[in-house]
């Protein structure tokens, strides 16, 4: 490639081909094992049929079905709504508390900071199955009812996970409980990255803790907030394991906890119990729409939170 004209810079700007060498290993593995299979499976959204032999091209038929078929459109609409609620609860509670905890942990004069930091992370290390089992045990009136009544907390003894009104919120909270460690960790890193001099100047100028937080810390960690938002967004819209562990693959009770991730799994991979016959094309259609929604959400967030030094 041509060399860039040397004017102000004493250096030569490397050509694209040079940089591609750095990108190559990642690009190769990613394309072979992720991009290519995914693109091929997205292509399936335009087809119906279960095996290579029975496939038929139906263009946007699958997409139409998602919005017009009587049962399916109810499921899809429900799953979409539930996923949005799930995401909002996670954003506010998991990420909100994450920032709070990170501020607390990075307060140099606090004692027991590393203890708290480790405690926050412990649930994240556990397999979702364990989390599901534990909370199913704790939230079940049959097992915890007696203990709660003895403590005078009898009113807390409700079938939280079995009631269509409360199940989704409770499962979202359990998800926050489990994953709290990750955003906290990222916010801690971001806060620690803030140059000491900025904070010292603020202290000398007599800024209160709240002022320091809102005027200095928050703006400086904006890129990380953006990153955490995107990661939460992407993970929640594909969330599956937590529902599988605390409820059922069907999003019990009565589909109240059905998310796009569980709907996708039932439609495209496992099929409904007990029939268990999947429709990969339909599943791919669900995943494609989710993908588009995610793109639409991610790009503005990226633009808004790109840090300026």
């Amino acid at each position, binding site marked *: 490639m041509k060399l860039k004209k040397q004017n102000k810079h*004493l*250096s030569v700007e*490397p050509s*694209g081909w*040079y*940089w591609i060498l*750095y*990108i190559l*290993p*990642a*690009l190769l*593995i*990613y394309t*072979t*094992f*992720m*991009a290519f*299979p*995914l693109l091929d499976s*997205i292509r*399936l959204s335009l087809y119906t049929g279960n095996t290579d032999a029975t496939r038929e091209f139906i263009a946007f038929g699958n997409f139409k079905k998602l919005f017009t078929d009587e049962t399916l459109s109810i499921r899809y609409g429900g799953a979409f709504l539930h996923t949005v609620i799930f995401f909002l609860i996670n954003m506010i509670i998991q990420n909100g508390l994450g920032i709070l*905890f990170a501020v607390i942990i990075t*307060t140099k004069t*606090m004692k027991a900071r590393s203890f*708290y930091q480790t*405690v*926050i992370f*412990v*649930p*994240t*290390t*556990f*397999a979702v199955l364990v989390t599901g*089992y*534990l909370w199913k045990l*704790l939230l079940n009136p049959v*097992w*915890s009812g007696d*203990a709660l009544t003895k403590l005078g907390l009898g009113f807390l003894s409700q079938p939280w996970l079995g009631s269509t009104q409360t199940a989704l919120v409770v499962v979202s909270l359990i998800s926050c409980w489990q994953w709290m460690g990750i955003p906290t*960790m990222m916010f*801690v*890193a971001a806060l*620690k*990255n803030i*140059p000491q*001099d900025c904070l010292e100047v603020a202290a000398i100028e007599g800024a209160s803790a709240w002022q320091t937080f809102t005027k200095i810390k928050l703006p400086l960690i904006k890129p990380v907030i953006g*990153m955490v938002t995107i*990661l939460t967004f992407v993970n929640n819209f594909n969330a599956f394991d937590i529902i599988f562990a605390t409820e059922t693959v069907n999003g019990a009770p009565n589909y109240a906890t059905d998310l796009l*991730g569980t709907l*996708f*799994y039932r439609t*495209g*991979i496992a099929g409904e119990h007990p029939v268990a016959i999947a429709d*990969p094309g339909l599943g*791919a259609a669900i995943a494609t729409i*989710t*993908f588009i929604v*995610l*793109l639409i959400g991610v790009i503005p967030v990226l633009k808004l939170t790109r*840090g300026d030094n």
Partner: protein
Amino acid sequence: MAQSGSLKKQNRHIFYHFIMIVWSFIVLFPIYVLLINSFKTRLSIYINPFGLPSKFNFSNYTTVFKDSDFLIYFKNSFIVVLLSLLLVIIFSSLAAYALAFWKKRNSKIIFFFMIAGMMLPIKIASIRILEIIKALSLLNTIWSLIPIYVAMGIPIGIFILTEFIREIPKELSQAAIMDGSSRFRIFTHIIVPLTKPALSTVAIYNLIPFWNDLWFPLIFINDEKSKTLLLGVTRLFGQYQTDWSKVLAVLTLSAIPVLFLYLAMARQFIEGVTAGAVKG
């Protein structure tokens, strides 16, 4: 003034401690329930789910150690996870370095192409991936898992690292260039040390899904000697009945290496940050 300042500080600290203690309770109580029930027998959990075991039953833990299969599962998980994390870190930091410094449109296109992988559920591609792994003759070995985990970790690695590398002040690398340093040396001697917190974030972020993944071991591996820990645990799940006290014991043991790896990597934060806090 100094007095009221430190009084305010003290009050704030009490408030902070209060919040953290409440949260710690919310975390530690379920963990306590987990631990005590792993020492009970299958049905005695339900006689008194939140009380200490009347008799500490260690057999759930000892069977894991005596059962040589579980030791193999542990070993397999270690190898797969550590190797995958290593490759993810190396490949994505190299790529992120390039993408952060290469300012052309092609670079942006490649960047978006590579982070798009985060947004799709990898499970839909299962059949094609299975076919590829089969074609490479990696089925039923632990090596089948590494390419797919690395591929899954790269989008996130690139996403996080590109951003962090962009934040590094340009003056540092400019100075090195003027000193005649090669781009690669800049990478190894300046960029990598400064991004240690980000590198450990990427490692920890991927550690959890790699270690706890059930799906890919399930469809790639049938041989006992190649199973990973979580896949091995599913052996304890019957169609209609499960011995949860055993499952809890095994999964508690499974969480310990993860916790250790987290603590080890979290140290990198502190070291990395103190090294990089000096801003030109």
